[in-house]
């Protein structure tokens, strides 16, 4: 059963990932991304991480990809981008080098972790037991961790989001005639 779920979900993830790269139409690519995200959510559920799965669907599939689609629809991106025009010359060689490097890193990580199976420390064992309690334990363990040990990182993330919102409002604002804007201050156009 577990193997079956894994195979189906992995096929969803990989098929979606290939689709994102291969499909020439941006909307189709975005939909393939949704397929990948759902596959990952299924894998989360198979690992008893229900909360992560729900958040995965709500945040990634429900908000981020919807935003992608929104931008694609409003800007009306053409059916096929012309691949021969390269806006940024070194992009492709750099991308292939980085991609290859990432493959090597992930491959090494898998091989190394297979060799050295770390025995769980007693403290993390307790956290795991709490997390595997079928009734809300998962969520409670996560919340306790998030709001005690990692509360600073959590708050900093929210500050980051607020900064992003404020910056967006500032950039999107129409300047009044005669008013200094971000661009003119920066000495641009």
């Amino acid at each position, binding site marked *: 059963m577990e193997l079956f779920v894994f195979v189906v979900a992995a096929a969803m993830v990989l098929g979606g990932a290939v689709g994102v790269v291969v499909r020439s139409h941006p909307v189709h690519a975005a939909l393939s991304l949704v397929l990948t995200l759902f596959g990952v959510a299924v894998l989360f559920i198979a690992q008893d991480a*229900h*909360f992560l*799965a*729900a958040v995965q*669907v*709500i945040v990634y599939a429900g908000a981020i990809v919807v935003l992608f*689609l929104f931008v694609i629809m409003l800007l009306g991106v053409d059916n096929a981008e012309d691949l021969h025009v390269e806006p940024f010359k070194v992009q492709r060689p750099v991308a292939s080098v980085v991609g290859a490097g990432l493959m090597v890193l992930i491959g090494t990580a898998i091989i190394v972790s297979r060799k050295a199976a770390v025995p769980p420390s007693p403290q993390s064992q307790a956290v795991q037991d709490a997390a595997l309690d079928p*009734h*809300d334990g998962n969520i409670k363990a996560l919340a306790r961790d998030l709001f005690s040990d990692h509360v600073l990182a959590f708050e900093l993330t929210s500050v980051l989001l607020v900064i992003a919102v404020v910056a967006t409002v500032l950039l999107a604002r129409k300047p*009044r005639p005669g008013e200094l804007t971000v661009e003119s201050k920066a000495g641009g156009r």
Partner: protein
Amino acid sequence: MFAVDSLLDGITVFSTQFLVVLIKVVVIFVVGLVGTMLMVWFERKVIAYMQNRVGPDKAGPKGLLQTLADGIKLFFKEDLIPEKSDRFVFKLAPYLAFVPAFLVWSVIPLGGDFSNGKDGTVSILGKATKLQLADPPVGVLLLLALSSVAVYGIMLAGWSSGSKYPLLGSVRASAQMVSYEAALGLSLATVILIAGTLSTSGIVAAQSSFTRWHVVATGVLPFIIFLLAATAELNRPPFDLVEAEQELVGGFNTEYSSIRFALFFLAEFMNTITMSGVIVTLFFGGPQPLKIFGNANVLSFLGPFSGTVWMLLKVMVFLYIYVWFRATLPRLRYDQLMNLGWKLLIPLSLGWFMLIAVFRVGSDKGWSQTERYVAVAIGIAVMFAGAGLLRLATRVSARNREREGAMF
């Protein structure tokens, strides 16, 4: 592996557990479809009487079979696909709208015995089970996830039609649904805070008497916000800008015909029923009996079915309210819709959430009565200060826009 239901432990095909799950799936599927059919009839009939008409009365007794007749007619109509459409997405979109509407049913407790702290289990064929298809620990989050997935159906339907009006309709719809999801989630968070659990059966079990129903326990306001936001999520009047006939022909489903159109139509009505079910589950105790006078369950003579009957009665009330909304309220303008969502509902639900959180901390720490009053007074003062600042900000921006000569 799936810690969703103890019933599923060690399940094999052709075992009794499998049979029970199968029965639940089939019953929910059939009841969902028949319920949707009746809902269409109910809405047409009630609106007709409110407008001093008779409504459908030819097919079957009181026109009950009218929806069936319409469905059969739709099935046999020509299935058109516009030339400029994106064929794959065009065919996919109706299912993306329909499936989430159905899946919500799986986490709503449809009955069961919650009296005296029981957790709503009943026994079917000798197996203890809950009267809901699944009771995942993240039950309520699943509702939010499904409502955010439901955006895809409408969005892609409008885009893939390759035509102007559906595209406009779908952009409106997705903007509206994404905006109101925030208010929906925040008002829902107050319920979670009071109930202390995310699972739907746990939320129902927490509402054991009228004063503990979340509509009372959270102070009515989250319920009102949830009702408004849910109506906007459903794209029902007065928030049905998605299909504003005068402006957009038919909205996102203009280019659809035959069975695909029927799927959108079904999804819309099924969403109305499921959303009523969600409201009843979250705020009105789900299958819990209404106990204002003493401790007696008025419907106790129905035995094990009393929970289901209570649920049905409560859902009916909300279905009527939705029809009533449609018959009485004029449609909002687009800027009014966005103002209501962003400038009123979201700040209000956020402020109320903070207030409830203060209460929760107070009860956890065992604050005295005066400490609680002080905390609440501070909370209310902060809310008013926030509201004042927000009002100032909107006024400044409105004045700026007026100077630039914007219309509204």
